[in-house]
């Protein structure tokens, strides 16, 4: 199988380093885009931390060379021809996306909600709904307070409320030279809001800012 890590500009593609299971990397160019991939005898790729980090390492190495579209973990093709055909089919869509993320990186921010908001014991149906509503309001106020001030540094933002994890998570696409300013702002917001716990990681490749489905 051919395992695909990233799509890059053909001009900046380089088969540097090794991929999953220490297999060598290969670049397959079609027109002005290229897929960075490796060839494998195995047919499944367990989503274990070591493998996930390796996938991301391959993506990150390309980031240093030019714009990158990271590919979802576990994406494979029967053989090189199948990948080349798909790249050629999606070529112009991929090219447009590469332009959109050029010079940008993704930062991840998570805001942990104070626990009290989660553990309200439900009374009757009406009480329960009231509590749900209050908790939702609290969450959106919190998001406004902590995440809104980050948005103006970003070119783009994606937010997700993760009730099951008691947190709001957000992704920001920001110019690569704004990473420091962004992270200082997170630090400042955290200081101003000691009742929540914020985390910020990155810079990542723009995993949250590529179109999952690329039409042919």
């Amino acid at each position, binding site marked *: 199988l051919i395992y*695909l890590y990233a*799509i890059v500009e053909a001009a900046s593609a380089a088969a540097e380093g090794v991929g999953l299971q220490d297999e060598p990397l290969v670049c397959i160019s079609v027109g002005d885009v290229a897929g960075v991939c490796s060839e494998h005898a195995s*047919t*499944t*790729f*367990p*989503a*274990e*931390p070591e493998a*996930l*980090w390796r*996938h*991301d*390492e391959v993506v*990150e190495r390309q980031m240093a060379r030019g714009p990158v*579209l*990271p*590919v*979802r*973990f*576990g*994406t*494979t*093709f*029967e053989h090189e021809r*199948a*990948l080349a055909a*798909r*790249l050629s089919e*999606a070529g112009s869509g*991929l090219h447009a*996306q590469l332009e959109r993320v050029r010079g940008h990186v*993704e*930062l*991840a921010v*998570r805001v942990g909600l104070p626990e009290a908001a989660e553990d309200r014991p439900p009374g009757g149906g009406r009480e329960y709904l009231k509590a749900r509503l209050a908790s939702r309001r609290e969450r959106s106020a919190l998001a406004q307070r902590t995440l809104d001030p980050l948005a103006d540094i970003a070119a783009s933002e994606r937010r997700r409320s993760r009730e099951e*994890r008691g947190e709001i*998570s957000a*992704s920001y696409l920001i110019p690569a030279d704004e*990473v*420091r300013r*962004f*992270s200082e702002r*997170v*630090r400042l917001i*955290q200081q101003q809001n000691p009742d929540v716990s*914020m*985390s*910020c*990681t*990155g*810079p*990542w490749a723009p*995993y*949250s800012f*590529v*179109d*999952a*489905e*690329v039409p042919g």
Partner: protein
Amino acid sequence: MQRGSRSPVSSGEDVALIDLLDRLLAGGVVLSGDITLAVADIDLVYVGLRALISSVDAAERAGVRLP
């Protein structure tokens, strides 16, 4: 890349791993119908990680100093 380098603000390796999972398993371009990994794998990774993090939290709350 070294895992520690993923933290411009704070947060340890576990936090970075959750962010990594969210991105690699739910984000990124999907170019083929073939995503060759079992869903069970993903759940296991998440569960294992949550367990790890909450036990770290609990230990810290109890005043245990972790290395």
